[in-house]
């Protein structure tokens, strides 16, 4: 394969292209779904192909194919597309410099998830399902999922890079549904979006303890069906890590993508309220410290090199509440005369790399969870994402959670509410943060379905945080008459 790729790149060098790269992706997926004690779907999936990106005279063209025998034709297609791009281009596309690399990387895994039998995986889900049913026989529906991916990637370019990577992603989760003639409620463990995901092996599933946590999910779903609607008004909130992941994703992660800032996504995913030159902006309170960290073990945004051959980095995004850096690819970084933050990824061989979150993590504070509660006279502890929406500049957000735990006089009362919704404006919200729990509460959640780009790509990203406290947040919409 290496000879084939180098031959194609040599041909392109002979044509005096500015730059070219070839990525080969070979993806193997296993996906398991159970419902109500039965196997709903067990899907094996394989996707293998390559994409060639050519920069010629300052213009870009990209062509991708599954047919490795026709690589020469694909090269010619990419060249023709690059030439066509010139017809509607004002400025040459530039790429930020970075050293060429010849290297390899593999996700550290204790147990290769593809070495565990399919039978054992199904038995785990069916056992967890039975536990939910046993705990709450009246549940309307129970479900479970497991997902495993091995992605073998080769990156080669005209600057001399040749990088091979083998990335493993593992995920799983369960759901309990309670329903009656009027309502349906769900409780997910450990999170929604087919559970939680990590760059890890099967040990991640073992550590998740799906069976041991099944009964609680079942009981909470049943209780939610009988629970009152969460009140509307302004309340102090403690937001748990399983919801903080979405809060960080939508109101920080997308806002700091430099391609959005530069307008590259304006027609589709949107832009950002941030602009170049806003470094130092008071994004949040002093308690808010956020990094983009592609080096942290276990994140879905953890890798050796991004899909432009830029090494994984840990970039400070917000420090002491002040905005510091965007995340970028080689092209967007060059527009600002900066170096890439190593955040360019494609969701497979048929797509170009675009700016993608790595692991955008809120760093832990120093408080105990009970201390966060103790500072609240009346409020709620919200967990697990249920609904999400934000505007195209990443300012006005509205999220719903699966469950609200009541806090009164500094303690959880044991009472729960259903359908909690909260809404806010990004900088106001993050500036209302007056406490983040400590490291022992810190947890990372991965998601595999972040949509962006045209043609659309599904990114795999993660967000770590501890529970955090926010003051006077708008909860509910029933009071808007």
């Amino acid at each position, binding site marked *: 394969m290496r000879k084939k790729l180098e031959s194609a790149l040599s041909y392109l060098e002979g044509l005096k292209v500015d730059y070219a790269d070839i990525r080969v992706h070979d993806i193997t997926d296993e*996906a398991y*779904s159970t419902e109500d004690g039965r*196997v*709903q*779907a*067990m*899907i094996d*999936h*394989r996707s*293998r*192909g390559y994409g060639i990106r050519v920069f010629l005279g300052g213009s*870009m*063209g*990209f062509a*991708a194919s*599954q047919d490795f025998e026709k690589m020469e*034709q694909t090269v010619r297609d990419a060249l*023709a*597309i*690059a030439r*066509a*791009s010139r*017809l509607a281009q004002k400025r040459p*596309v530039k790429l930020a410099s970075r050293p060429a690399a010849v290297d390899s990387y593999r996700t550290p895994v204790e147990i290769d998830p593809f070495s565990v*039998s*399919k039978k054992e995986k*199904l038995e785990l889900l069916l056992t967890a399902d039975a536990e939910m049913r046993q705990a709450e026989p009246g549940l309307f*529906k129970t479900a479970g999922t497991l997902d495993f991916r091995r992605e073998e990637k080769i990156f080669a370019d005209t600057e001399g890079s040749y990088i091979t990577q083998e990335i493993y992603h593992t995920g799983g989760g369960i759901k309990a*549904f309670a*329903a009656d*003639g*009027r*309502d*349906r409620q769900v409780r997910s463990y450990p999170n929604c979006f*087919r559970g939680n995901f990590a760059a890890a092996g099967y040990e991640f599933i073992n550590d998740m303890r799906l069976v041991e946590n099944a009964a609680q999910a079942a009981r909470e779903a049943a209780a939610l069906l009988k629970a009152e609607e969460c009140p509307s008004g302004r309340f102090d909130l403690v937001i748990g890590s399983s919801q903080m992941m979405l809060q960080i994703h939508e109101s920080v992660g997308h806002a700091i993508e430099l391609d959005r800032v530069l*307008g*590259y996504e*304006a*027609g*589709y995913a*949107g832009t950002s309220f941030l602009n170049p030159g806003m470094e130092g902006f008071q994004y949040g309170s002093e308690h808010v410290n956020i990094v983009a960290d592609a080096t942290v073990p276990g994140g879905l945004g953890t890798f050796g090199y991004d899909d432009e051959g830029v090494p994984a980095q840990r970039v400070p995004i917000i420090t002491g509440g002040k905005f510091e850096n965007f995340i970028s690819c080689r092209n967007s970084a060059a527009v600002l005369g900066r170096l890439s933050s190593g955040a360019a990824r494609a969701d497979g061989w*048929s*797509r*170009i790399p675009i700016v993608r979150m790595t692991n955008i993590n809120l760093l832990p504070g120093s408080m105990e969870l009970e201390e966060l509660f103790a500072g609240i006279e009346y409020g709620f502890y919200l967990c697990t994402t249920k*609904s*999400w*929406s934000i*505007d*195209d500049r990443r300012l*006005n957000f*509205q999220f719903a959670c699966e469950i609200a735990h009541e806090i009164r006089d500094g303690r959880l009362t044991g009472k729960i509410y259903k359908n909690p919704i909260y*809404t806010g404006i990004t*900088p*106001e919200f993050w500036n209302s943060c007056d406490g983040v729990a400590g490291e022992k509460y810190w947890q990372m959640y991965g998601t*595999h379905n972040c949509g962006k780009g*045209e*043609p659309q790509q599904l990114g795999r990203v993660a967000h770590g945080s501890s529970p955090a406290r926010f003051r006077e947040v708008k909860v509910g*919409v029933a009071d*808007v*008459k």
Partner: protein
Amino acid sequence: MWPMLSKERAYAIIDLVLEEAKGYETAVIVQGGNEALTRFANSEIHQNVQASSMDVTIAVTRGHKRSAVTTGLCTPEGLRRATGEALANLEFLPEGEKQPPLVGTPPEIETVSLDAELEREFTAENRARLVARTLATLEEGYKAFGTLAYNVNLLAVGNSRGIRRLAIQNSVNYTALVASAGGGTGYAEARSHRAGDLDLAGAFARAYEKARLNRDPAELEPGPYTVILEPLAVGNILAFLSLMGFSGKSVQDRAGFLTGKMGERVFSEKISITDDHTDPNTFTLPFDFEGSPRRKVTIIDKGVARELTYDLNTALKDGTETTGHALGISPMSGMTPPVPLHLVMAGGDQSLEEIIAGTGDGLLVTRFNYMNPVNPRAAQLTALTRDGLFRIRDGKIAGAVKNMRFTESMLHALNNVEAVSRERYRTGFFNFGCYYVPALKINDFHFTGKSG
């Protein structure tokens, strides 16, 4: 130079797999695509891509067991390996739900709709020229963003009962967002599988005109307003109503807003919605991913919930027949619910212009951003307005308004429909599917927040 997406190749794949799985109930789905997309931002092309792909799904059934493998390795060796994996899985799979019999009739459905003009006019070079031509109409202070995409799609289905299905179609999708230096934006789309229907310059001009109008926006307080939702905004809502509630699966799961309401009046009698792939303004796909003939489904008839869409499994559960809306399986989500892709909403008897002229005080909405269900059982949705929200006073557009968030039950909103426009537009259903929808005037539509 595209690889051929041909009937011969698709059927050869199906034949090979069926031979390899002889003796089993086997269904094969072949999906192929040649997609080319030119993307522009800041009034110049910044991304320009093409990809060709083919994926094969092999589903084998034995008794109550069903195993599925999808592969992009479409060589004989790759297909044999994938078939072998699907068969091997049957050995340890526990018994599942009763499986419906495979589709057996009619033996053949084929439709090939390749518009030669589209193929000729939307090469990479021509796409770039078309983009350049529209960009040249912009005055200083305005920038444009968007896409021009040309796609060829193939879907072929075959099974061990001998059926063969084939659909090949090409199409063009165009999106244009124009932004002024002051930040005001306008947006429009054009899409069709017929070159004669496409008016890219017209769509660009609409987006440009909206961007011109969208300046010095006023800030309004949240609360109930009379709104006129343009077709793109109505299409946004319809997509989520469809996902939340129009399939038999959504009612079986007690997840959708039509649970327990079939046969009842749920919307204003001004609202009628069918799923109709034979409507010339949607696109032709006369069968589904199981090979069942796709039939027209009357989902809402003058406000009354009449029918839901089904695939074989969900129909079996409800003791009814499939409507031909199976969408197959996805490694991302397992079995995909049988959601309608060709929704057609009945038009009214007033033009959009007349509806605006008849409005004393209201808001005109171009489209929505990041819509999602808040409570699917209540058909409660939330989203923000985007790329043009305008105040209407005394029958005229009186000025721009800053974007606002609505959180509203569509069971409430679509019972407050005052007018439906005569003209209708084609809108997209995420990345596939095509709707044909009018504008709606709705009273007492609840905005619950404003953009910062």
